């Protein structure tokens, strides 16, 4: 287990019989209370590990039921009931030679990190996707609430990964930039042109994903190359 931020923790699980997983998939975690009450939540896989292990990064939600337990209470060696990994849609496929543009809002970076890690780990593999450039546009409240900071800095030293962060509440000290929300011009500036036919993966809170996907479609990117995953069951204005 690793603390990612003040409110997020990464858990490594061993799933007997698991033989790897696809980048972008999720698992369902079911907790059972001593009286038999159960609750199920879906969490994206953050890792790109071979074999029978995977990692989840869980953000504690203020009104959460399962996430506070996973962030604060579960301990190394505990057993959890896990279903998956599942999902075949919001998944990066290394056979696709297209350049990839990942767009994350907050904890939406988790499944995109699995794609980045998979891409970096497979660089010597022959599949064309591993030679395609990856870009991450990461909209996050502050440097302190960003996940995977040091690892992303390290991975971005590769010519095949470019990371752009947009800080919405608090910019890095001494950076000379002001915090601001992502807007359409900033987005379009940070991504490849339509002619590069990038494959998009957009993940974050519903309002963020809706807005970003609309901007992309309005800018002429084909809707069928934009895959989305919306986070957040509660606390989101419908």
């Amino acid at each position: 287990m690793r603390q990612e931020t003040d409110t997020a923790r990464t858990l490594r699980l061993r799933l007997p019989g698991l033989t790897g997983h696809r980048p972008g998939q999720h698992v369902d975690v079911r907790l059972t209370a001593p009286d038999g009450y159960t609750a199920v939540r879906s969490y994206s896989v953050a890792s790109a590990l071979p074999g029978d292990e995977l990692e989840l990064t869980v953000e504690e939600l203020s009104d959460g039921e399962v996430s506070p337990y996973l962030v604060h209470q579960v301990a190394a060696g505990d057993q959890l009931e896990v279903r998956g990994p599942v999902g075949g849609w919001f998944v990066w496929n290394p056979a696709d030679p297209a350049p990839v543009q990942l767009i994350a809002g907050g904890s939406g970076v988790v499944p995109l990190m699995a794609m980045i890690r998979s891409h970096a780990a497979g660089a010597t593999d022959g599949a064309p996707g591993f030679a395609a450039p990856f870009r991450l546009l990461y909209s996050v409240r502050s440097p302190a609430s960003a996940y995977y900071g040091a690892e992303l800095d390290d991975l971005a030293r590769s010519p095949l990964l470019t990371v752009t962060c947009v800080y919405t509440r608090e910019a890095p000290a001494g950076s000379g930039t002001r915090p601001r929300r992502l807007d359409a011009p900033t987005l379009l500036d940070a991504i490849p042109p339509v002619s590069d036919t990038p494959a998009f993966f957009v993940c974050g809170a519903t309002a963020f994903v809706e807005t970003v996907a609309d901007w992309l479609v309005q800018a002429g990117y084909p809707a069928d190359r934009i895959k989305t995953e919306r986070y957040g069951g509660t606390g989101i204005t419908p």
Partner: protein
Amino acid sequence: MGIVSPGFFGRRRRDDPALPPGQYLTESFPVLSAGPTPRITPQEWEFTITTETGQVHRWNWEQFLALKQDDVTHDIHCVTSWSKLGTSWRGVSIDTLFESVESDAEFTMAHSYGGYTTNVPLDDLLGGKAWIAHQFDGEDLEPAHGGPARLLVPHLYFWKSAKWVRGLELLQQDEPGFWESNGYHMYGDPWQEQRYW
């Protein structure tokens, strides 16, 4: 009983009998979609039922609104574990749409603007169990929630209630739709917890 987590108590259910296993209550209305939201105007919207013999029944927006409208209230259950109780919809019963349709098919594929598909047995759409809904809580259905119109099949997980629906295709044999081809259950009964294959 599964693996017990001694320190876990969870939020107790307010309406035990109404919540399928593993579900929790939400007051909001989250969105689950696989891509950008299609923007379809009522002027360009049409709905078709295509039978197994290739016969096409067609309604434009005006014709659709001229059909008998039902106001219904149902609980809805999303596979991502949220449930919303007592949601209010206005729409046209699938029974009404099928009054003039001749078919022996047992299965359907719902087709949506934007390319989404999902499979539902015909029996699950007839007998007052499903609607083409165009209003939610007395307001026109927003694009993010499937407007101008969505399929509403409240007794199955909500991915079966295809947003931006544009037609039903009658099939002799069951076939997987979009999420069903991506790891989700062919039928999707929340009370049996049929989330995945």
